């Protein structure tokens, strides 16, 4: 079925909640508003919900029945990231499977202690007996003029911390398959979506068991001259760069890692054996961005196959300025991806 990235996410949450009573969604504005980007639209109604969101606001002067929280499958939280992220951990420790929606991944910073010190570490430092089936999902990135504190990429900070799985889908199908895997995983999964991808349509299997395993990169376009590795919004940009390169007789292979933890280095190494050249591009800042980790690791594993040093592209080292022209001067552009590919081909 052809559907949007946002709807694919929404539908997986609906289907998983119907399948398993312990799955629930909480976050800011997830009820009536359906989430700031529509990822929880009518989720409540579909799951038999009633109450605030079903009312004619603002006509009813209704006293909210607090006990509704017991049976609510998708409910609003106050603006308390540290509080509700930590509550997600607590609920996950006692038999629930919470999906915490962050309105913007930038807001993870407000609850970073709960993510890094509590969620990531609980299983390991408590001796390996705990299972934490928690998903934290939300969107990041440029594309809506939301400026510096609402447009960041968070995955490089988070990839650094042991104990957190990270998925970052670039298509509706990947979003659906990875999200189902995330929800069924008994480990903390940070599910990073992109705000500029929500309306992108894609073919998603009509299968309530459709799952994509973590740690399996996807070759989005096959090629033989250069390997481009990209995630989220930059998969599309890399594909556009590949089109331009094709017109010039250069065949680029575009690989989307899909999950940063676990990371599929094997697919990248196999590709480099074929192409001998790699460009890694992401929206996150280049300095200490996740591309540095991947470039270093691939170099270690595939040095003898590389015909040029791995080239990395990422946002310049300044906050994301609001003005569009400035933003475009900060984040990598398609022509820069093309130029980088030519550079590693010594063209």
């Amino acid at each position, binding site marked *: 079925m052809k559907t949007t990235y946002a709807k694919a996410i929404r539908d997986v949450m609906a289907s998983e909640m119907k399948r398993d009573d312990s799955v629930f969604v909480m976050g800011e504005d997830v009820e009536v508003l359906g989430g700031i980007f529509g990822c929880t639209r009518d989720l409540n109604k579909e799951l038999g919900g009633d109450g605030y969101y079903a009312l004619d606001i603002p006509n009813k002067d209704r006293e909210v029945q607090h006990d509704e929280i017991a049976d609510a499958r998708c409910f609003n939280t106050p603006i308390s990231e540290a509080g509700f992220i*930590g509550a997600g951990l607590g609920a996950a420790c006692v038999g629930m499977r919470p999906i915490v929606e962050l309105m913007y991944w930038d807001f993870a910073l407000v609850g970073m202690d709960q993510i890094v010190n*509590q969620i990531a570490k609980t299983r390991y430092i408590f001796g390996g007996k*705990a299972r934490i089936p928690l998903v934290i999902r939300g969107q990041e990135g440029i594309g809506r003029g939301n400026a510096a504190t609402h447009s960041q990429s968070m995955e490089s900070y988070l990839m650094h911390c042991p104990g957190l799985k990270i998925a970052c889908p670039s298509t509706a199908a990947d979003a659906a398959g990875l999200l189902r895997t995330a929800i069924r995983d008994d480990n903390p999964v940070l599910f990073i979506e992109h705000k500029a991808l929500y309306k992108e349509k894609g073919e998603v299997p009509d299968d309530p068991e459709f799952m994509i395993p973590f740690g399996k990169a996807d070759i989005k376009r096959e090629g033989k001259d250069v390997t481009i590795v990209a995630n989220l919004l930059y998969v599309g940009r890399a594909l556009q760069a590949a089109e331009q390169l094709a017109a010039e007789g250069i065949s680029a292979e575009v690989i989307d890692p899909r999950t940063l933890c676990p990371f599929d280095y094997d697919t990248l190494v196999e590709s480099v054996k074929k192409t001998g050249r790699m460009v890694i591009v992401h929206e996150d800042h280049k300095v200490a961005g996740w591309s540095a980790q991947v470039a270093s690791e691939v170099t270690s594993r595939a040095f003898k196959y590389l015909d040029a040093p791995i080239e990395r592209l990422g946002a310049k080292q300044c906050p994301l300025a609001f003005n569009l022209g400035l933003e475009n001067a900060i984040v990598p552009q398609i022509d820069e991806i093309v130029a980088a590919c030519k550079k590693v081909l010594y063209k």
Partner: protein
Amino acid sequence: MIERERALWIYNKMNEIRNFEEAAYKLFEENKLRGSVHLYTGEEAIASTVCSTLTEKDYITSTHRGHGHCIAKGAELDKALAELMGKATGYCKGRGGSMHIADLSQGNLGANAIVGGGIPIAVGAGLGIKKQHRQNVSVSFFGDSASNEGTFHESLNLAAIWRLPVIFICENNGFGISVPTWQSTSVKNISDRAAGYGIPGFTGDGNDVEEIDRLFLQAKERALRGEGPTLLEFKTCRWRGHWTGDPEPYRTKEEVNFWKENKDPIKNYGKVMIEQGLATQEELDEIAAKAKAKMDAAVEFAVNSPEPDPAHVLDDVFYEG
């Protein structure tokens, strides 16, 4: 009056905790303990009394000063001490240490080295209980200084709006390391902050078993009726420094001695138990002796336990199924 069986349990737990903390202190002085530990000596009444009516299906979250809560919530002394010593036989296989000691099977969601770090987790446990329609409670232990962390405020609000079966217990020992509470905290009685969240708040004597029990049971029953959270504050004193090795320049020996001499929870509740005919002096002495023997055995066990194998250092980051 607390029923005899439970009173004996509480008296025993307080002894176990007192012995455990003193054993830990001794090991620290002998350089046999890595890092530092934060001792609960003098505060035993709170953990013991509160946990005396909890089962393993009720949850607690604790603090960096968590040995007392851990033992009161069902931990065995030997495995707990082994954890403090980083041994493979410890509750966390030597990976957590004193500040991260936990036992999920007993409903102990862990000591927490981040001040205020455990409070939202307790809220989440309360949320889980409510969603599972269970008759259980979630207890969050934290100190006076944690009531100034953002997570305290967020957590009280969350538990209040959702009417969760959470009991927030502030163990006010008057200091956040060296910073006295009067310097850091805008209210004299931290329980006053409950009003800011529309929930009931009570302050009590943290060294009086019966007062703790009365206030806790009241809060527990309220939670089980589905009426939501309560904030309890128990004033107490930690006999030892913030951490083992703390030179304590911020208070006088006289101050501490006053509490030791007049407000020892074990001595005082022992007297009460005898007055109320719940036990004889002989029985109390026997409990104390058994607790001591148990602790000696625990030290033996922990000291002789093996170190964890570094070959397995990467195990259990994730659950592999």
